[in-house]
């Protein structure tokens, strides 16, 4: 069967940007929350931009979470972008304490330190800590576009593929089996972002 990426749509602002990027790279994709489409897809992407708790509210209201969980358990590649990565955590602490999808347990989403100007917006480099298909061909210290004030913390270091430094060293890319998360926006990161999306579409 041919590859097809299913982009999940819970009203997050950047669905269009993610779709445009995949279209430009000629990676077959659809935007859908239909359980059948999710099952047929070879890869899932959960985009994201915005606050943890309001994103979780919309995810719970609009996405077939059990279906997605079940597909992830069966080994289907899953990519969470920005807040789409953060909601994999057990708890978020933005505005209020909010339970996440808890796909990677014992993790939290906490604020970047007040010593730097927030939000962290713009281009920053990542430090690659381990070999993984998602970073294949990428140079260390490659720049990516970030827009966020919160980050994943308390995560098992074995799951951290790359870090980024902004007042604190935080996970830039995480990977646990078939589950990938990126704090930056590959869909807005030009050639480095294109490489990440291509690598992702090539994962099985």
């Amino acid at each position, binding site marked *: 069967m041919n590859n097809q990426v299913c982009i999940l749509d819970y009203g997050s602002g950047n669905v*269009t*940007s993610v779709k*445009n990027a995949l279209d430009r790279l000629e990676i077959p994709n659809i935007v859908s929350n239909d359980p059948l489409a999710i099952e047929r897809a070879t890869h899932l992407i959960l985009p994201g931009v*915005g606050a943890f708790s309001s994103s979780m509210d919309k995810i719970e209201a609009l996405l077939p979470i059990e279906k997605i969980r079940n597909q992830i358990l069966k080994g289907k590649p899953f990519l969470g972008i920005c807040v789409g990565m953060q909601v994999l955590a057990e708890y978020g602490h933005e505005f209020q304490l909010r339970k996440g999808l808890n796909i990677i347990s014992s993790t939290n989403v906490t604020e970047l330190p007040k010593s730097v100007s927030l*939000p962290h*917006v713009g281009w*920053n480099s990542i430090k690659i800590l381990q070999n993984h298909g998602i970073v294949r061909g990428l140079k260390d210290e490659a*720049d990516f576009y970030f*827009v966020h004030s919160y980050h994943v913390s308390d995560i098992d270091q074995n799951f951290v593929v790359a870090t980024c430094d902004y007042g604190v060293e935080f996970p830039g890319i995480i990977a646990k089996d078939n589950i990938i998360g990126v704090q930056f926006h590959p869909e807005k990161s030009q050639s480095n972002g294109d490489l990440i999306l291509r690598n992702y579409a090539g994962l099985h």
Partner: protein
Amino acid sequence: MKKKRVIPILLHKEGWLVQSKNFNEYKKLGNAQMAVQRLSDWDSDELIYLDISVNPMFTTNRSDTAAPEYLNLMELLNRVSKVARMPVTIGGGISSLQDIENRLRAGADKVSINRAAFKDPILVQKAAREFGSQCIVVSVDYLEVDGLRFPYASGESGLFDSSVCLTDWLLKFQEVGAGEILLNSATRDGNKCGYDIEYLDEISSLLTIPIIASGGAGSWEHMAEVLSKTAVDAVAAANIFHFQDQSVYLARKHLFSKGLPVRPPSIG
């Protein structure tokens, strides 16, 4: 390492990319979508797209340009977002949460709110709650008069209440949840005299959110000056990026060679 951003601003008026001088003279420069394609090809860090149309329906009334025609801002934005490989901020005519949602849906990554933020700062707060601070830019134009600075609204309405000082407004916007401030000196707009270093230095050390400096760029060296003398997070300009091939590349090349923390120059 976190980089400082170099951001082209595109002014759009009824289907045309335009050049502005002092907010009252507009010169047509060309097709507003093709300009985005160019800036994307030159690996621009980001784009700010400000719509200053008076008429909501656009047409350039030209069929000889081989350039696509579009009818309204959403249609234009849709097309722009397909060619933009970098984040796009859209501003102009935003006065409600629905306006913001429409623009994000059409492919904008951030929105910039100008007049509505002065009229109703609570809109900024609501928008930050709904969409996240990171996609809410408050765009502020100001006039410099005898060393004093006043918020300024283009068009008929002119000056805002000048009894409230600019700095207090900016602190207010930060407090209600703006993610960034696009700070533009209307006095320097189109005059190529350099950025307002004195005020940008003061305000960038006072506020904790990122400041995007705008107004007055006449050379790449003006950008180097503002990045080395102030704590602004980004430097923006309009006119200077539209008259030279590979302008964005050349700007970053200049700044990079001076040891300033920008992304290495590249062509996409």
